[in-house]
């Protein structure tokens, strides 16, 4: 891999993040008629039975505080500078909480749940999809495709409701919601870690059930064309072991598109499975984003989206750098 390629690729990453972040800055501001500060203060005023006369002045004061009184281009410039420093500002709805702090609190929950669930779903699904095509595998795997296909079509939050009802309510094996039991204190201790695993089993199961089907279908499609390749037939004619042909010839070659999809899926995992997290009241990025949207908390929405964009940009860049290791036909050398 040449240094030139790395520089160009990092440059592309920065441009992608900038462009996506800019779109994300302007779109909420194009939606006229909603003013989160006015809404919030109006709500407070109404619930508190306050008199209305001071509100206008308060709105002015808060807008000045968040820099919303400045002209759009100044706001944009400030936004870019702050984003570059990863300073995401204050939450509009939960002032004085800082957006960065809120995301930092939610992130480990989401990463733990979704990355683990994604990797489990990916590994299981890829293997099952490959075995569904392999003639020497037990026929069970061929029949398994149909239930998997069904599962892949059901959104994980609905599967979530099913597992809550069966494993949570009826059998009472797993807690229904939350990241840990109320009353316990987070810390890096064995009992707390077990507690977290116990709580995250159901949401993870909901995601894995759907993901296994998704990955199995993708892998199955690729395997069908790969097992028809000449090199598979010649490998058999050359007396290679069936297991060797399966892993080092068939799966190895069918795997490449799966790898791309895995990268994107990991990147999206950062922003959380919004609805799944909400269903399970799981304290991750999904719940954070959901509450922010409800409260028109622009700064939090901005922050979550910016982190997502950066994650996707970063992962696709890492993918591009690692492709040549997986497929020697892809190389980043300049042919001049």
């Amino acid at each position: 891999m040449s240094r030139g390629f790395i520089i160009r690729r990092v440059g592309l990453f920065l441009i992608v993040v900038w462009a996506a972040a800019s779109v994300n800055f302007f779109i909420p501001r194009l939606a006229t008629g909603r003013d989160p500060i006015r809404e919030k203060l109006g709500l407070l005023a109404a619930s508190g039975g306050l008199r209305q006369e001071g509100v206008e002045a308060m709105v002015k004061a808060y807008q000045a505080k968040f820099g919303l009184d400045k002209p759009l281009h100044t706001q944009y410039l400030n936004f870019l500078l702050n984003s570059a420093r990863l300073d995401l500002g204050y939450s509009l709805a939960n002032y004085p909480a800082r957006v960065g702090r809120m995301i930092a609190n939610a992130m480990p929950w989401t990463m733990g749940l979704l990355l683990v669930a994604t990797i489990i779903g990916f590994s299981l699904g890829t293997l099952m999809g490959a075995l569904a095509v392999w003639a020497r595998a037990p026929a069970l795997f061929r029949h398994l495709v149909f239930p998997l296909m069904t599962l892949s079509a059901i959104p994980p939050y609905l599967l979530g409701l099913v597992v809550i009802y069966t494993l949570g309510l009826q059998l009472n094996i797993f807690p229904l919601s939350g990241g840990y039991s109320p009353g316990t204190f987070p810390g890096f201790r064995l009992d707390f870690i077990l507690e977290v695993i116990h709580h995250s089993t159901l949401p993870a199961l909901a995601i894995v059930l759907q993901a296994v089907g998704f990955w199995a279908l993708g892998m199955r499609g690729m395997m069908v064309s790969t097992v028809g390749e000449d090199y598979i037939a010649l490998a058999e004619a050359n007396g290679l072991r069936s297991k060797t042909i399966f892993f080092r010839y068939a799966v190895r070659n069918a795997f490449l598109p799966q790898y791309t999809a895995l990268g994107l899926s990991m990147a999206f995992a950062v922003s959380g499975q919004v609805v799944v997290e909400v269903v399970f009241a799981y304290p991750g990025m999904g719940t954070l984003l959901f509450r922010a949207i409800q409260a028109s908390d622009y700064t939090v929405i901005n922050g979550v989206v910016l982190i997502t964009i950066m994650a996707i940009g970063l992962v696709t860049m890492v993918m591009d750098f690692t492709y040549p290791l997986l497929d020697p036909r892809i190389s980043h050398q300049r042919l001049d």
Partner: protein
Amino acid sequence: MGGPATDMRQKLLEIRGLEVEFQTRRGIARAVNCIDLTLYAGERFGLVGESGSGKTTMILALLRMIREPGRISGGQVLLDGVDLLKLSDEEMRKTRLAGLAMVPQGAMNSLNPVMRVGDQIRLSMSEHGQRRPAEAGRIEELLQMVGLRPQVAELYPHELSGGMKQRACIAIAISLRPRLILADEPTSALDVVVQRHIMQTLRSLGESMDATVLLVGHDMGLMAQFTQRMGIMYGGKLVEVGTVEEIFSSPKHPYTQLLIASIPSFKSRGEFKGIPGVALSLLNPPTGCLFHPRCPQALDECASVDPSLKELDGHHTACLLYGREGTHAATPA
């Protein structure tokens, strides 16, 4: 080829009554139909026939690589006296490459694209229990035997030309010194110059290792240059077996005669001669001799009697023109 001369030679492969059937929705198609053939140690034998005549299916049957819905429905394949059809799956796997090796049809895509050439040769050997010490330098030696530089071991298939890929496939095929090399149209995707080099390589390797080469194809010119004996297939049956000289100078079976006559030559320019009619349908084969609907010399009884391979002075043909069915002259030469 005179009787005594060939009989002195050691029999390597004896195919007896080999049959391959494909179960289809519209019935059973017999792609290989009661083939009897003997190949001798060190000879080069050519198998020709039009597309769909069962050449490739027969090669796959020898390797026991017929896939569903096909199956080997009968016969024996004796390699050095051992019936391959009776081996266990694991024994058959070990026999592939070590006993009989294949040089593939489409070399363009016959190597694993994500593995270095040297690693692919090494893997083929290690899967047959060849341990590391023995192979030190062996991969380089194999590459040189097929006319490739030793450095090719470090390259990936996409870095090789078509001819180089075919040579790499041959290097794998000879890595365990097989007695029998099956070459299924090994030069079909290559240009004529490369074709010639590949065939020369195959010939000299066959000679130096005393391996039998079974060449399958429909390039009659290539067959004439490369092989010593030939077999002609039609509709899954072997209709004629003889030396190259006999087949070209005095073909017996009407199908062979038409096949030879259809080869364009420099002398008789003009109209291109084909064989009238269309190739038979294996699902609905004609009664009697499979070729009789297209045969210009067909007799009345050809529609009812299916001739078997019959010996005429060491040359074998399955045709009623050369005498009525009598004894079952199954074992050729």
